[in-house]
C-alpha cells in the first residue's frame, strides 16, 4: 500500500514537472479555471436575487453546500478527471498496455493523467467556503469540525467511485462518454443544491442509488446544525465515510468485473 502511494506520487510528480515547464501557461490555465467556475456560483446568486430562500435554505447556507460539493468535485476531477478519455483508451486498445504491467489497472488509470489546471476549481471552492464560513456564524463543536474535515475526502471518494462505476460502461459501449457525464458532471451539479428542492424520486436516487447526497447535503446539515426538512434519521448526517467505503468496494468490484470483459481492439 505504502509502495503504491509512493509510486502514485512518482507518476503524478513526473507529470507535474512536465506541466510546470510551461509555467506561465500553467498559471493562466489555473487562473482561468478559477474564474470560470465562478459562473456556476453566479447562477446561485442570481436565483437568490429573486427569492430569499430556497426550500429552507438561505444563500449563505447554499454557498456552503456549493463549496463542499465544488471542492470535492474539483479534487476528484484532479485525481481521475481523465476517466473522461477512458472510452478512447478502450477504443484504441491502449488499455492493453496497462494489463501487461504488474500493477492494478485502476491504480494505473488513476496515475495516468494528472492535470494541474484543474486545481483552479478547487481554489474557487475554497474561496467560496471561506466566504460562507465567514458569514454563517457556525457554532463550532469538535464533532462539527470533524464532520467538515472528513466530508471532503469522503466526498472525493464517493464522487470517484460513482465515476469509476459509470466509467466501466466504456468496456461495453466503447463510447459511453456522454452517458457517464450525465452522472458525473450532472451529479455534481445536482449536489450543489439542497436535495430537498428536488422531487421525491430524484432525492431517493441521490441519497441511495448514486449516493451524492452524502458528499455535501448530509454533512452540511450536521455542520450547520440544521433541522433536516425531510426528517431523515440524524445518523445519516455523519456516515459519509462509511458510505465512501461501501462506494469504493462497489466501484472496485464493478471495475474487476468490467476488466474481465475487456475485448481489446484489433491490430
Amino acid at each position, binding site marked *: 500500500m505504502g*509502495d503504491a502511494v509512493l509510486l502514485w506520487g512518482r507518476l503524478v510528480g513526473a507529470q507535474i514537472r512536465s506541466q510546470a515547464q510551461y509555467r506561465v501557461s500553467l498559471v493562466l490555465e489555473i487562473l482561468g479555471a478559477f474564474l470560470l467556475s465562478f459562473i456556476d456560483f453566479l447562477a446561485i446568486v442570481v436565483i437568490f436575487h429573486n427569492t430569499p430562500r430556497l426550500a429552507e435554505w438561505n444563500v449563505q447556507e447554499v454557498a456552503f453546500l456549493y463549496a463542499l460539493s465544488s471542492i470535492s468535485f474539483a479534487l476528484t476531477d484532479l485525481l481521475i478527471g481523465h476517466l473522461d478519455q477512458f472510452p478512447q483508451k478502450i477504443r484504441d486498445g491502449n488499455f492493453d498496455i496497462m494489463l501487461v504491467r*504488474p500493477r492494478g489497472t485502476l491504480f494505473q488509470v488513476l496515475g495516468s493523467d494528472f492535470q494541474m489546471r484543474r486545481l483552479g476549481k478547487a481554489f474557487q471552492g475554497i474561496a467560496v467556503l471561506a466566504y460562507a464560513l465567514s458569514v454563517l456564524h457556525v457554532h463550532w463543536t469538535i464533532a462539527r469540525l470533524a464532520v467538515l474535515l472528513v466530508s471532503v475526502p469522503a466526498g472525493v471518494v464517493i464522487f470517484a467511485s460513482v465515476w469509476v462505476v459509470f466509467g466501466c460502461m466504456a468496456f461495453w459501449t466503447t463510447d459511453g462518454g456522454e452517458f457517464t457525464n450525465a452522472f458525473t458532471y450532472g451529479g455534481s451539479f445536482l449536489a450543489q443544491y439542497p436535495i430537498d428542492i428536488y422531487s421525491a424520486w430524484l432525492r431517493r436516487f441521490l441519497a441511495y442509488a448514486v449516493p451524492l447526497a452524502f458528499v455535501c447535503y448530509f454533512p452540511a446539515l450536521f455542520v450547520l446544525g440544521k433541522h433536516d426538512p425531510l426528517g431523515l434519521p440524524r445518523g445519516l448526517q455523519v456516515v459519509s465515510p462509511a458510505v465512501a467505503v461501501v462506494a469504493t468496494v462497489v466501484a472496485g468490484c464493478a471495475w474487476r468485473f468490467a476488466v474481465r470483459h475487456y475485448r481489446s481492439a484489433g491490430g
Partner: protein
Amino acid sequence: MIEVEHLAKRFVVRRGRFRRQRHVVEAVKDISFRVERGELLGYLGPNGAGKSTTIKMLTGILVPSDGRVSVAGLTPSRQRIELAKRIGAMFGQRIQLWWDLPLLDSFELLRHIYKVPADRYRTNLARFRDVLDLDPFLHTPVRQLSLGQRIRGELTASMLHGPELLFLDEPTIGLDVVAKQRVRDFLIEINREDGVTVLLTTHDLGDIERMCDRLLVIDHGSLIWDGGIAELRERYGAERTLIVDLEEPAPPLEIPGARVERVDGPRQWLRFRGSASELTARVAASARLVDLQIAETDIEEIVRRIYSEA
C-alpha cells in the same frame, strides 16, 4: 515456456442497424502449440487471422473462451500481475512510454512500476543505451522522437525489468531498412546471449527469414503451419520459376517438366522442379532465347500458397 492447448476465443458482435442480430466470431479456434525456453519464433498470418488475439491471451489481456494456456508456468488471465513481472510485451502500434515526458523519465517510472532493483536497472539501461544507441535522444520528450527512435525506446521499456519471455507484436512496422536491421540484431542478441524466449508477430517476412528458426502460421483462427523455415521452403518452395525472354512473342511453350504460368509479349514464366540447366537446354532447343533468369520462391509466395491451400 508456453503451452497452449485447444485455445479458442469467440467474440459476440451485433450487426444490423435496427434489428440487431448476434453473431459469434471465432477469432481463434482450437489452437495448440508449445514453445521451449530460448526459442525465437515467428507468428505469421494475414490481417484479422487471430495473431494479436492469441498474443493477448498469452499475456493475460484477454480471457480465453476455451482451452488451456500456460505461460512460464502461470495462467495468464488469472495470474496477470505475477506473469507481468516475468514477461515483456511490445505492441508496435501502442505507446507504453509517457508521451510528454523525456524518454529517461519513462524508464525511471517503469523501474518503479516493475520494482527493478537500482543496480540491475543501471546495468540493464547501460546495455540498452549502448546496443540501441539511445544516448542522442535520452532526454527528448517522447512525442518529439522519430518512429525508429520511439520503437528503440519501447523495446528498452519492455526489457528493463529483465523478462524471460518477450512478446512483440509487429516490432518493425513502419521502420526504414536501417532501423529494422538494428531492431533485428538486437532481438537476435538478447535471444542468443541472454536466452530470452521471443515470440514475434509480423507481416514482414524479412523479419522471419533473418531471425526465426521456427514459424507458426495462422489463418482464419487456425494454425496452418508449425515448423522450421527450411522445411516450409522444401515443402512449398521446391518449385522455382524460369523467366525467359524470346526473340519475338510466341504462344506458351510446351516443354516437358515445366508449365507456363504467365505470358507477357516475348517474356514467359515457367514453373519447374529439379535442374535448371536441363530445362534451359530444352527451352533453347525449342525457341530462340535472348535472355533468362531464375527466381527462387520467397516466403511471401510460400505463405500465399499455404493460405490458398488451407
